[in-house]
């Protein structure tokens, strides 16, 4: 089962293991990882599951959808590695993924 590590803004880490197909957002909210809100329940409609993905991992994820691009315009501190966690499905190929969380969801 794929494992993913969330690094908080202040450096704390949370590693969770989830069934393949689980979105990165649910991986956080199902396991009460603080720092990911997912207010819209995963509909790409609120941008409160904002994460930063480092370059080598970013290349291995699918491209952002048009809606995801739009919603990312809402986040403060958008960076090159910005993604919405609800749009990333965790697979065994992504085992070991590490993401950073912003200071706060907006």
């Amino acid at each position, binding site marked *: 089962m794929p494992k993913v590590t969330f690094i908080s803004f202040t450096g704390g880490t949370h590693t969770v293991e989830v069934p393949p197909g689980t979105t990165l957002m649910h991986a956080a909210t199902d396991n009460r990882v603080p720092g990911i809100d997912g*207010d*819209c329940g995963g509909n790409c409609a609120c941008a409160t599951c904002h994460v930063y993905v480092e370059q080598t991992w970013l290349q291995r994820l699918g491209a952002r959808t048009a809606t995801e691009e*739009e919603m990312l315009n809402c986040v*403060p501190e958008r960076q090159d590695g910005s993604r919405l966690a609800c749009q990333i499905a965790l697979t065994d190929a992504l085992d070991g993924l590490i993401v950073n969380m912003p*200071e706060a969801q*907006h």
Partner: protein
Amino acid sequence: MNAMDTIQSADMHAAARARIAALPIEGLNPADPQWFVDDTEGYVFERLRREDPVHRSHSPVPGIDSYWSVTRYKDIMQVDTSHGIYSSEEGITLMDFPPGDEQKLPMFIAMDPPKHDAQRMAVSPIVAPANLNNWQGLIRERTVKVLDSLPRNETFNWVDLVSIELTTYMLATLFDFPLEDRRLLPHWSDMITSNKLTNPDAPDPQVRMAELRKMLEYFTRLWNERVNAPPRTDLISMLAHGPATRNMGPIEFMGNLALLIVGGNDTTRNSMTGGLLALHHHPQEMTKLRSNPALIDSLVPEIIRWQTPLAYMRRTALADTQLAGKQIKKGDKLAMWYLSGNRDEAAIPSPDRFIVDRERPRQHLSFGFGIHRCVGNRLAELQLKILWEELLRRFEVIEVVGEPKRVRSSFVRGFSHLPVRIPG
């Protein structure tokens, strides 16, 4: 209020529900503000969700006329996230004004991309996490000051002494507005949202426009002071310096100001009142809260769901389309009834109960979803959090001693009066 009042109130509600169940569904017009004055709109929405979730509605008010009422959470989410089909440019309230009519103010909530995006992005840094952190101390200081000066052992209007006072302070802070004039802000907010066609007590349109011109003059003066000064972190300075906003004309400036004043003002105000009323009606929830103040973190979003300070948002179809099996025509207007979606048991468990420790309290429609989702949502929550922290610390008992008086509006869901007494 005593037990007898509660029984009478329950009887009245049961009677209203029965009466509404007997009405022919075609005539049900959720936008009639009388439902909201009577606090019976919930029964209208209950029927519509069950029997006609995308309901052709008719209002006798000229300018509103016919529109679609969208009442289920799922359908509202669909409309809110499909801005390419459902536009905000014709306005976000049901009332249409004749072209060129001065009632309509241009603001980014009523724009589509790309113009919307540029303006929103200019404003959203004001509520970035760093700013919210910076304001916490000031918000708490002012909250403490207001709460410590409340009268004891006498009945007062919570709306005026707490809800309006605190949100006004907050708005003045956002704008770095002269504190001695801060009561102009809720005055202008009420002018902006007033509409004589739906509320006979509202000011005449000419009076309203004259007041809004004064608002523009005052803010223009502040703008002129700040545009030549180095950029600061207040909203006026941000608008004056932001590349997308520094060249906007006076009407657009007025429109965006109006948006920020209304958005940041009577919504939070009505949540401050609504939260107290909700806890009063659900005493077992207050007990839970008092024995575990950490529950404030889930209390706050539940208050916002419960109150749904803006009951709906309007959209206009840009093309013929289908929604829940209904044929929507290009040009049709729709109301996304957030208030109804927030009581939809298909999306929210036990939605008709006020529960301070819900598992997913933030999953509600009150801030909207999609690109127009409320920019100030975290600031609203911060104000409510601090208010409840200080209330719980200070007052063992806060008694609601009479019925609230509700605002005559199907858009702004709020209160003008809530009689409260704090023993001490």
